[in-house]
């Protein structure tokens, strides 16, 4: 597989390696100009281009956004590229579901002298609408189906997230909390998922999904992102993910899981849209699988490497209450 890195010998870092991979394997997408002559936009440009507001349409309590139905339908009408092996090519930058809830938009004053970073203010205490939103987040129609003896613990963790959430202290969110992939690189025998982490406690986050026919390796150590084995069922990539540690949450709402968690992830590409679905099973904590679906739309034609985002926690010792976002 050395041919992947031709011309990139001096490049280090996963994100930059991906930049090198894209020209070689992204031919089924639009053909980008050589990186060295391309003007790379600041930021991803998706805030203004795709200002989707559809957070949590099906009451999961998750921050993953859902595009409006008309955007999904329009994206479906695009061509579905395939690789030489005949399978759909999932390669590309996909938005916006993985972006979380804190997408912002800045502005500059008319005289150009003042930059504004954010879009709203918070007063000295959380406003009633924020309190109501947090409450609503825990009352959705598709929350994790916990067994009765786990619910109180989840409720406590959710209400004390600022102090209990491992991710608040820069621990990895892990899969599936990290959400849908932000960028996918598909090559024969494996698919790489890269995650946008610049807006979260996550640091460099990626998964390598083996698609060469191998089975799970039971000797692997449990991990935050699990062991991912993928295969095609028609046009759908089906990924079986196991072997998780039990100290991550499934969302910001105190949603713990056990080491018996097993996730089946499905991606079906139709035009410029991917139907992304996960089914989370946890026989120790759930009464049934928790199924979540989002639609991802192909974006960022300009191309941009995902950034590394180091995480250093400074605030924990200064929190005076459990207010959270």
């Amino acid at each position, binding site marked *: 597989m050395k041919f992947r890195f031709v011309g990139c010998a001096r490049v280090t870092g996963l994100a930059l390696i991906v930049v090198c991979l894209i020209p070689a394997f992204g031919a089924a997408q639009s053909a980008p100009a050589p990186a060295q002559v391309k003007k790379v936009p600041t930021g991803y440009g998706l805030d203004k281009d795709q200002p989707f507001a559809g957070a949590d349409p099906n009451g999961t309590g998750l921050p993953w956004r859902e595009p409006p139905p008309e955007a999904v339908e329009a994206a479906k009408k695009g061509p579905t590229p395939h690789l030489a092996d005949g399978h759909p090519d999932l390669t590309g930058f996909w938005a916006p579901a993985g972006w979380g809830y804190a997408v912002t938009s800045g502005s500059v004053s008319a005289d150009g002298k003042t930059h504004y*970073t954010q879009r709203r203010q918070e007063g000295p205490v959380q406003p009633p609408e924020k309190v109501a939103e947090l409450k609503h987040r825990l009352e959705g129609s598709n929350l994790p189906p916990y067994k009765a003896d786990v619910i109180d613990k989840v409720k406590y963790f959710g209400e004390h997230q600022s102090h209990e959430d491992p991710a608040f202290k820069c621990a990895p969110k892990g899969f599936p909390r990290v959400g849908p992939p932000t960028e996918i690189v598909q090559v024969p025998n494996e698919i790489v998922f890269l995650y946008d982490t610049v807006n979260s406690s996550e640091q460099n986050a990626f998964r390598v999904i083996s698609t060469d026919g191998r089975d799970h390796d039971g000797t692997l150590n449990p991990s935050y992102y699990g062991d991912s084995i993928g295969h095609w069922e028609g046009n759908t990539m089906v990924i079986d993910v196991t072997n998780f540690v039990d100290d991550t949450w499934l969302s910001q709402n105190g949603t713990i899981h056990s080491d018996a968690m097993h996730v089946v992830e499905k991606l079906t590409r139709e035009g410029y849209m991917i139907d992304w679905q996960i089914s989370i099973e946890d026989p120790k904590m759930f009464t049934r699988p928790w199924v979540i679906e989002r639609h991802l739309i192909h974006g960022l034609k300009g191309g941009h490497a995902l950034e590394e985002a180091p995480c250093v926690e400074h*605030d924990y010792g200064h929190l005076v209450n459990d207010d959270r976002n």
Partner: protein
Amino acid sequence: MRRTLRVVVAVSFGLLLPAIPVLAHHSATAEFDSSKTFTVKGTLTKLEWVNPHVYMYADVADENGKLIPYSFETGPPGNLRRAGVVRTMFNVGDVVTIEAAVAKDGTKHLGLLKAMHFADGHTVVFGSAADSEGKN
């Protein structure tokens, strides 16, 4: 150059509406009281562009000329970048006037950034234009 400490604790009576960033981590209200602000003039000493919150540090001279290290928090790097505010807009050594909200736990010399005014007259407001209307 001797810098004079200028700390103004401005208790808001609705006149100074705070422009507080959305924090992706804890809520701002868990750590800072945006109804109480202070303003200092100092020199940036360190820029820490990290999750979950960017921190910027400044030395501020007290009334005796002694330099006091201050810490200032704002949103995550991704938020700032998407809003067009990037690390290269700030430099160690810049002399700036900083408006910030006080820490609720009483920690001195720690604040949530509201605005940073630069010597050449430009400003970065860590909030929206609407929030700051009539203020800047």
